[in-house]
């Protein structure tokens, strides 16, 4: 019985060894399987990842201008007794190639034990054509392109800005210029004429009064005095007081209109020259301040 037991133990060990060998062989066979490498076209890079190749580590073989396929090993990982690679390749000429021809082992040993690494590089051009296809004809681009469009938009924007600003400034300038060019005498003349004719409404009478007082303030150099102070001084000024007092009587005193001879009051201001005030020497009136 002991013998039988010993024989049985031996056969079990043997079975285990056979199983282990079978497993290694199966693993090797799986490692030796090479996936189908993707096709590519001329100039377009393709890539294969996690490719297990037996033997020592590989590297890309040197290449020159005549090499039809450029192969790069991008990453290498140990994989049991084999190595695992991420490889990219780029075909420069159409045709079918075996990448083994463009690889070599780092230790200089042969690569004959490698499986075939066949790739097909196709071309989009008809055979014999070495120049690229002409561009497909499409609709015409915008006239002048983007820069011209930007320049045109800028010009339009500027034109609108000028249109918005310039005429208004011009109008304001014209207004102020027109007002500035009208002397006080020019403004007084029509008011005096209408007042003498009895045609002035209250708002124009008010304007006439202010203009007459303003005339005397300018004439006597009282422009810089506060208006109330200037009026007080005018009321006591020998030349201006008759006008100021009669204006008050005419325009503000109850029933005062009948007491004033409006024609006589306004006659000195009927035909004032436009530059009347310019000719008045201010220094002569300096005492009135």
């Amino acid at each position, binding site marked *: 019985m002991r013998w039988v037991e010993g024989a049985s133990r031996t056969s079990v060990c043997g079975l285990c060894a056979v199983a282990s060998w079978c497993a290694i062989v199966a693993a090797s066979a799986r490692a030796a399987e090479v996936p189908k490498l993707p096709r590519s076209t001329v100039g377009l890079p393709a890539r294969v990842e996690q490719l297990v190749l037996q033997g020592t580590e590989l590297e890309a073989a040197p290449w020159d201008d005549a090499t039809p396929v450029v192969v790069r090993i991008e990453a290498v990982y140990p994989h049991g007794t084999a190595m695992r690679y991420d490889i990219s390749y780029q075909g420069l000429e159409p045709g079918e190639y075996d990448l083994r021809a463009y690889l070599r082992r780092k230790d200089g040993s042969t690569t004959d034990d490698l499986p075939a690494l066949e790739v097909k590089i196709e071309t989009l051009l008809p055979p014999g054509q070495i120049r690229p296809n002409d561009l497909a004809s499409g609709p015409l681009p915008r006239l002048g392109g983007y820069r011209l469009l930007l320049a045109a938009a800028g010009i339009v924007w500027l034109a609108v800005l000028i249109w918005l600003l310039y005429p208004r400034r011009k109008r304001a300038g014209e*207004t102020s210029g027109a007002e500035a060019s009208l002397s006080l005498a020019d403004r007084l003349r029509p008011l005096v004429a209408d007042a003498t004719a009895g045609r002035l409404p209250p708002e124009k009478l008010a*304007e006439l009064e*202010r203009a007459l007082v303003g005339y005397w*303030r300018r004439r006597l150099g009282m422009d810089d005095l*506060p*208006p109330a102070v200037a*009026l007080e001084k005018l009321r006591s000024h020998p030349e201006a007081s008759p006008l100021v007092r009669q204006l008050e009587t005419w325009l*503000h005193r109850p029933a005062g209109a009948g007491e004033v001879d409006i024609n006589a009051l306004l006659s000195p201001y009927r035909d004032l020259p436009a530059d009347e005030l310019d000719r008045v020497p201010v220094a002569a009136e300096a005492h009135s301040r």
Partner: protein
Amino acid sequence: MATLERPAPRLPNDAAARTIRFVEAVRDRIATVVVGQDIVVERLLISLFTGGHLLLQGVPGLAKTLLVATLSKTIDLSFARIQFTIDLLPSDILGSEILDQRTNDFRTVKGPVFTNLLLADEINRAAPKVQSALLEAMQERKVTIGKESFRLPAPFLVIATQNPVEQSGTFELPEAQLDRFLLCNRLDYPDAVEEREVLKRNMALGVQREERGAIVKTEFDVLEGGPVGSSEELVEAMEVVHQVHVSDTFVEHVVELVKRTRSHPRIELGCSPRAGIALVKASRARALIHGRDYVVPEDLYALAEDVMLHRMRLNYEALADGYTGADVLRQLLDEFGFTRNPTTRASHIRI
């Protein structure tokens, strides 16, 4: 000319004469205590005669409080003073209801606002809700305490003061509330002659014995004797002011001046119609104080700053250019009076 044929207003000459005597008596009495400040006294009288409120703006020490206290003693008017502070409550001014423990019922205690002449000292130091409470009373001339409304005594005049220098911890009155003051007068320092007189009078005040002690007299102790005017005379003066003649031409001046504040290129917020009303009212009172029964443009010019300046707000460009409200008003009056060419927007805008 149709516009000139107006019926003459019937001014009771004897009443006008009495009013003018009343004004002179008040001015003389005030002058015994307060030196100078003729313009402010005139503005006080204008406010009294028109029933409009007055805001006095000036640095401390210009006799604002003394002036108002003196006026209240000069005319037979009740007077109260409230020093506005940050912790003041509306009930401190208006009054409140308190529980009477004997009757177990609420009793209304009226505040200091129930007076003829109320001095609101440093009004900008109080919180806005207190300012609003007072300004509502000023506007409506009545106060509601609890569920009951009470009319304020007549005349009721608020004279508020503001210190323009110390602005920290103050609440500036908004334009809408400033608009309720008929006049805002900016007090200036007295000239050298007036200041000399102030010092002389102060040096002559002396000391007043009280029981076993003594106190140094102040200007507040100087006013002696009874009032020189009664509230009846004041009422008569108010009636006479309403009969002062205002010509159509003067109204046109006012309308034009107020209108120009709304279109001036340096003014953001122009004067309201209330400014025009205030100008006419104040001009009438000033005319009477100056012995006239009709207003003249001089009244308008003299009162323009006090009536209009606190009702205008300059725009950002004017402020950035360093203009003050007084500068712009001065320009506006010069343009209005034909002594300066109009300021146009073109001459103002810088591009």
